[in-house]
C-alpha cells in the first residue's frame, strides 16, 4: 500500500528531516510511527500525502509514485486518503456538519447521499447530537473527533494521523485509539505518528521508531 525506498528529505534551509528511510506498509495494517520530536515523523506523513516531495528516493502510495506526481493528479491521490492533522485544521466559520461535508463537497457528491454519510461519520465519533454546533464551542477532544469524522467521511483506503492525541488526557486518547482500531478492522490502512509512547504501547500495533531521520531498528 505504502512503500518508501531510501527516502531523503532535505528542507530548504538545509534541515535534513529524513536520511535514507526504507519501509513498507501493507494494505490493512495499523502502524505507529514514534520517536522524539524532530525525528521526522510528520515528514513521513507529509510525504505520503504529497504535501512534501522526497529530495531523493521514492515514495509509492497505492501504486502511485508521489515524487513524480503531476500537480493536477495530487487532488485525486488525496481523495484516497483520510488526513488528521496535529492542529486539526477545522474551519471555524461553519458548523460541525459542514466541516465534515467538505471532503464530499469537493468530489461533487449527490447531496442527500452526502448528508447521510456525514451523519454516519458524526455518529461514528459520537458527535451526531452536535452537528449544528460550531467547532469553537466544542471541547478539545470533541474537536479532535470532529477532525476524525472529516477524515473518514469519504471512506478512504488509508488513514494518516499526525499526533491525534496531542493534547488529550489518557482516557480520551484511549477512546480515540479504539476508533482507529475499529476503522482498521473494516480494512482501512492506518498510519499514526505519535510521540505518546503509552498510547502506542496500549494499542500493541506494529511500531516504526524514527530517530534523527533514520529508522531505529
Amino acid at each position, binding site marked *: 500500500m505504502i512503500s518508501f525506498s531510501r527516502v531523503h528529505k532535505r528542507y530548504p534551509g538545509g534541515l535534513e528531516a529524513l536520511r535514507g528511510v526504507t519501509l513498507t506498509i501493507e494494505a490493512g495494517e495499523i502502524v505507529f510511527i514514534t520517536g522524539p520530536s524532530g525525528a521526522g515523523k510528520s515528514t513521513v506523513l507529509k510525504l505520503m500525502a504529497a*504535501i512534501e516531495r522526497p529530495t531523493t528516493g521514492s515514495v509509492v502510495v497505492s501504486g502511485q509514485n508521489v515524487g513524480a506526481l503531476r500537480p493536477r493528479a495530487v487532488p485525486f491521490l488525496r481523495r484516497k486518503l483520510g488526513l488528521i492533522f496535529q492542529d486539526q485544521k477545522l474551519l471555524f466559520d461553519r458548523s460541525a456538519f459542514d466541516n465534515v461535508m467538505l471532503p464530499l463537497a469537493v*468530489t461533487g457528491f449527490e447531496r442527500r447521499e452526502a448528508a447521510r454519510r456525514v451523519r454516519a461519520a458524526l455518529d461514528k465519533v459520537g458527535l451526531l447530537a452536535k452537528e449544528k454546533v460550531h467547532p469553537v464551542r466544542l471541547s478539545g477532544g470533541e474537536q479532535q473527533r470532529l477532525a476524525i469524522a472529516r477524515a473518514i467521511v469519504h471512506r478512504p483506503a488509508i488513514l494518516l494521523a499526525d499526533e491525534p492525541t496531542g493534547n488529550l488526557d489518557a482516557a480520551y486518547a484511549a477512546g480515540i485509539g479504539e476508533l482507529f482500531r475499529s476503522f482498521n478492522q473494516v480494512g482501512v490502512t492506518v498510519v499514526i505518528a505519535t510521540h505518546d509512547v503509552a498510547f502506542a504501547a496500549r494499542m500493541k500495533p506494529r511500531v516504526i521508531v524514527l530517530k534523527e531521520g533514520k529508522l531505529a531498528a
Partner: protein
Amino acid sequence: MKTWMWHHLDALRTTLARLLRTPVATLLNVSVIGVALALPMGLYVAVVNLQGLTRSLGSDPQLSVFLALDAGPAEVKRIAARLQQHPTVREARYVPRDEALKELKSSTGLADVVDSLPGNPLPDAFVVLPRDTTPEALEKLRDEVRGWPKVTHVQLDAEWARRLDAGLRAALLAVSLLATLFAFALVAVTFNTIRLQILTRREEIEVSRLIGATDAFIRRPFLYYGALQGLAGGLAAWAIIGAGIYVLNGELADLSRLYAAQIELRHLGPEDSGSLLAFSAALGWFGSWLSVNRHLAAIEPR
C-alpha cells in the same frame, strides 16, 4: 455531467451567500463599479441621443434659395425652369412666401408675433435637393445659384447637422477611450476584492487542497464572485443612467415646449443594455481570474 452541473450550482449558491453576508462591502464595491461604468455609458447615451436628433433633423443636405422680395411671377418661373434643368439638381420645390408664413405660424408657436406683423416679411424660396451631396459639389452649386438675378441668398441647410454629426463621431471615439479606462478600473477593483477574499479564506483554501479539491473547484467560487459583482455593477450603472435620464427628461419637457420640438432622451436599447451587462460581468470575471491565478498559487499547504 450531472456532477459538473452540481458543482457550478453549488458554487453559485455559496457565492451569492458570500455576497450577501457582507452587504456593506458588497454595496460599496457594486457602487464603485456602477459609477465607473455609468460615466462612459452615460456619455454614450448622450451622444447616441444627439445623433438621433441630428438625423431626425435631416442630414440629407439641401439648399435653400431665397429670392428678392420684388421678384415677380415671371422671374419665379424663369428661376424654377433654370433650377429644374440644371444637371446637378435632383429636385427643386417652390415655396411661395404665403405658404412659408403659414408654416411658420403653425409650427413654431410664433403665431402672435406673426400676426402682429404689418405684412409678410418672407421672400419666395426654393428648396433644392442636389444629386451630388459632397461638400464641394454643394458649394459649387451654391456659388453658381447665388450669382443669378433676383436671388438674394443661398443657404446650405444641413451643414450644421453634418458638422455636429462629425463632432459626435469624434465624441463616440472619446467615449470608447473613456470606457477602456474605466474597464481597467473595474478589473482593478475586482482584482483587489478577490485578493482580499483569498487572504481571508486562506485556511479554507488550504484545507480544501488537503482533502483533495482540484484547483478548478477552489477557483470557481472566486470567478463567480467576480462575475456576479461585475454584473451587479453593470445593473447599478444601468440604473444610474436611467435615473439621470428620468431627471433630465423632466427638465427637457419644458425646453421642448419652448422650442416646439420633440426632445426626449432615450435609455439604452435592449441590445446595448445586454452588452453593458455582459461586458461588466465578463470584466469582473477577468479581474478575478487574474487575481486567482496570481494569488492562489501562493497558498500551498504545509
